[in-house]
């Protein structure tokens, strides 16, 4: 991975918002499935340009929260505004300016990388699509497998393609579900470095769900700690470390998971 040192990213842009400064605004969000309360009355905001981490164990409600933010899952109650758009009423306007990547959702395996990017370029109405695909191929080093079927790529190559798909429309809000899952440390580090630079240069707001505490500590300016569908603590990684008297977020995570932590303070992002 060491030869990928050039970062010809898009020039810095300040996303336009309908109103307010928050890219993501969630109020009293709840999702109930029959007898299961998957997300329980959570509220948070993400300022523009921030990288917000969702941390929690399996079943904590991270994926459910992301699905509701994407409009693919209808909340039981509560409201979501993204880039000023109410997701209950006007989700398509927001979706055009968002994107999403998850290792658990595939791209059509028999189609080439270029064909996959072309499909999503059309779906997001990307202008000058072939030029954009060329830019992404250069930025994410896709050239060597641009015309190979997506299903024949290695995990690291698939991650880069998934990132290219997620960036095809130059999103103002990017939702990433475990972006470095199943990657070797070298590739994982490359992805994290790339995301840091992309956010800094594009002004994009990133919401990141991860089990990798070092990743969250490195990338996120704000962290929400989820447990059984509720936000049990929140703050910057440094604030959380100080509050729990720990040296890394993994220890904070374990304190919270095993109910041996301190009572949370209210910290508004």
């Amino acid at each position: 991975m060491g030869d990928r040192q050039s970062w010809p990213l898009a020039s810095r842009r300040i996303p336009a918002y309908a109103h307010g400064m928050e890219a993501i605004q969630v109020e009293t969000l709840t999702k109930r499935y029959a007898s299961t309360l998957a997300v329980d009355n959570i509220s948070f905001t993400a300022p523009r340009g921030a990288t917000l981490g969702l941390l929690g164990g399996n079943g904590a409600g991270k994926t459910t929260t992301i699905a509701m933010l994407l409009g693919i899952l209808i909340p039981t109650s509560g409201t979501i505004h993204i880039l000023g758009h109410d997701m209950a009423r006007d989700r398509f306007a927001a979706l055009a300016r968002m994107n999403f990547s998850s290792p658990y959702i595939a791209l059509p395996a028999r189609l080439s990388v270029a064909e996959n990017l072309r499909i999503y370029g059309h779906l997001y109405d990307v202008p000058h699509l072939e030029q954009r695909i060329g830019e992404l191929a250069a930025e994410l080093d896709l050239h060597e497998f641009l015309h190979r079927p997506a299903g024949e790529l290695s995990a690291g190559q698939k991650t880069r393609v998934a990132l290219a798909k997620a960036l095809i429309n130059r999103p103002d809000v990017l939702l990433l579900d475990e972006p470095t899952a199943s990657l070797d440390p070298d590739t994982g580090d490359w992805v994290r470095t790339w995301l840091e630079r992309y956010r800094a240069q594009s002004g994009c707001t990133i919401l990141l769900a991860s089990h990798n505490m070092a990743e969250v500590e490195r990338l996120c300016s704000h962290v929400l700690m989820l447990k059984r569908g509720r936000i049990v603590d929140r703050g910057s990684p440094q604030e959380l470390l100080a509050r729990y008297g720990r040296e890394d977020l993994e220890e904070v995570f374990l304190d919270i998971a095993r109910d041996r932590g301190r009572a949370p303070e209210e910290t508004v992002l």
Partner: protein
Amino acid sequence: MRASLRRIWGMMYRHLALYRRSWPRLLELAYWPVLQMCIWGFTASYMAQRMGSTMALAGGALLGGVLLWEVALRSQMGVAISFLEEIWSRNLGHVFVSPLRPWELVAALIGMSVIRMATGVLPAILLAWGLYAYNLFALGPILVLFFANLMIMGWAVALAVVSLILRHGAGAEALAWSVLFGLTPFSAVFYPVAVLPVYLQPIALALPSAHVFEGMRAALLQGEVRWDQMAWAIGLNVVWTIGAGAVFASQFRAARVRGALLTIGE
């Protein structure tokens, strides 16, 4: 509108690119219609040789029925299987978090259905002309209405199938192949509605296809255009399409409530 058309094209491009890379999928499109035409074409030829001109007329109705029923079958499968391709490739999660509207997805599926139907049925029509000197286009301009009604009925049934897949997951995918075959006995493809028992005739008359095939036999055997049958077929198709569209919309919303669009599978 331009952005909508582009998204529709994006979804169609996804399927066209797949066919370009998969000759078995292309072969499958024409395989059954051509096979059906061979079986029923030779059967009709044999019967016409043995039993004379009356049987030749009946054979013509049989071939017309085979070809036109394939139009409905391929139209229905074209929508349902194109939707299933998204499930098989685990791609629905990406598609439904894009700005693609549900109606745009349906429009793309219908577009692919037209292409799939033409790819499957045209070789069979050419085969009927080449092997049995049977020219379906001799039915005249009314053939356009026959085609349109059967295609629309196929799409309506497919929307209902897609709704069931949204409700029950890929476990309902067998319906994509079988559901319209189940309507064949009531569609009066090869015999008039009057042949059915009286208590089954209302079922047949509720199907747009039964009116199309009554119209086809009138055109082939009596040389007349039955506008009353066409009016029934069009009216029923309007009702079926509205009904299927409402079911699809409600099941799509229900899938968003359950989170099925991310997890849909077995």
